[in-house]
């Protein structure tokens, strides 16, 4: 069994790092929301506008944040990562 190509190893490490960081961002955002629900219900009940509480805003923002992280990853992978992969394949 041949040893791993160092360029491939470096690319795998880079992908892994980006994946971990994006996952951590998602985890932190979601847990910030859930722990506020668990620990500080009055804060989430703060009325920001007629019909809008902080809780509803943050909940919707968690969903939007998930979309943003998804698009960041797909944007990176479709351009930079796929290009590096194509070079490795050659």
């Amino acid at each position, binding site marked *: 069994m041949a040893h791993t190509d160092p360029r491939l190893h470096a690319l795998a490490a880079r992908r892994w790092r980006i*994946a971990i960081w994006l996952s951590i961002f998602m985890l932190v955002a979601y847990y910030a929301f859930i722990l506020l629900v668990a620990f500080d219900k009055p804060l989430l009940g703060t009325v920001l506008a007629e019909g809008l509480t902080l*809780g509803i805003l943050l909940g919707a923002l*968690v969903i939007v944040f998930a979309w943003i992280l998804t698009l960041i990853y797909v944007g990176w992978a479709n351009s930079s990562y796929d290009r590096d992969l194509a070079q490795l394949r050659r």
Partner: protein
Amino acid sequence: MGGETNIEAIIFFFLFVSFTLGVTYWAARRTKTAEHFYAAGRSITGFQNGLALAGDYMSAASFLGIAGLVALNGFDGLIYSTGWLVGWPIILFLIAEPLRNLGKYTFTDVVAYRLQQKPVRLASSIGTMAVVLTYLIAQMVGSGTLIKLLFGLDYTVAVIIVGAVMMTYVLFGGMIATTWVQVIKACLLLGGASIMALIVLSKFGFNPLNLFAKAAEMNGQRVLEPGTKVVTGAWDAVSLGLALMFGTAGLPHVLMRFYTVPDAKAARVSVMWATIWIGSFYLITFILGFGAMVLVGQQEILAVGGGGNMAAPILAQVIAGNIFFGFICAVAFATILAVVAGLTLAGAGALSHDLWVNVIRGGHAPEREQLVVARLSSVILGVGAVILGIVFQGQNVAYMVGLTFSIAASANFPALIMSVFWRRFTTWGAVSSIMFGTFGTLLLIYLGPTIQIDLLGPKAAAAGSAPDVVASAQAAIEAHAAHVTSQWWYFPLKNPCLFTMTGSFLIGIIVSLLAPERAAEDGFAEVERRALLGEPTPTAAE
């Protein structure tokens, strides 16, 4: 309304079934090999698979259940919606591409890639079947109850219809039919729910805040605030969050979908679309829940029965009349059918591809035999699903969905992650991690409040010797709870995922470090290469 024969709904449902059976006939003629049966010949595009993934995930539980939860509790429904969505970016970042590149038909292919096939496949099939069966029970029982409410059909008849139609899809059309049924259903569900949300919003100047304000005016500000029911304690919240987030990344029927696309890039694109559809769907459902709260009213929703599940269909009837009500009911039925078909296919993958072909036949079975065994497994699972649905009739199965996600997060997700990313992971590390995840979760749920208090409490009270049953029932339940919670074996969390998932990771790591496996470590270079590049290309100089 609820429980009466619903002609419009039956007509719409009949149209859906006829059309999808037509699709199945078309698909059946294209299903010639095991690759067609399990992976739709890898011919699905990223966009189509994104819709199918969303279809697999938007079950009747999330459509009717979350709409009902929001209609009755307001804000709290959002806690589940966010939890169910945030698992998807995790699948994208950590799972989708390596899974597509390393596996063939099931996620077990990836776990077993560089490990000893038989023990790992055996363990992983147990984890898969535990998830598939608990989810099937929840879906079948839910379907029988719902269809009784929606269509006025008898419970047993409903369960048998679901089982028969679903089995037809899977048996003849395999993954090709199942995928297209999911795509059609996802479009109907997203379309129907969007039209409803638009009609609701049109009554409030197209501003959701006006709707929320009206809800608060009618039912008090509390509907816009976190309640006390959904998240009780901080540890329960953390544990539930883990199960929702990582459970999604361990659902066999979701993971299996990544093999239907041609390459890793298409897998990536499909998760992106799935995340967009599912997120939109949850935002729409939130609007529908509030719409039902305001336009139908909480008392009216409760009066129909079904614990809030009828909120969305009744809303359809109130805002757009009987025909639209029938359409939404039929979509809900179609949703159940499609999800059950996906689950059955995933279970068939474990039974035939992992157990029969790779454990019993040592990885060498002729193509024809693989297809026959796969179809036989689908029949066994289909019949099993109907029997389970009938056996569990009338049981409270709400906890089953939580159980499913906990097992998926504890048994499947850790083994999958470690096999792809950790060089020193071993066969016995994988086996012990999966076994602990499966049986640890089952045991702790059994010893926890869900079973011991919520389920057994009323039974213990009913069996008690109290003479004046009605007056003392509540007291007996409380006495039972007090007795149980003081026992040494009592596990205080509703959701054990915090312990079982971290435990699965720890056990996998400890066992792997105690007994290193040279062959597995040597195989890692190949895993790393193939996780990135996919199947070896003929020109590769190796």
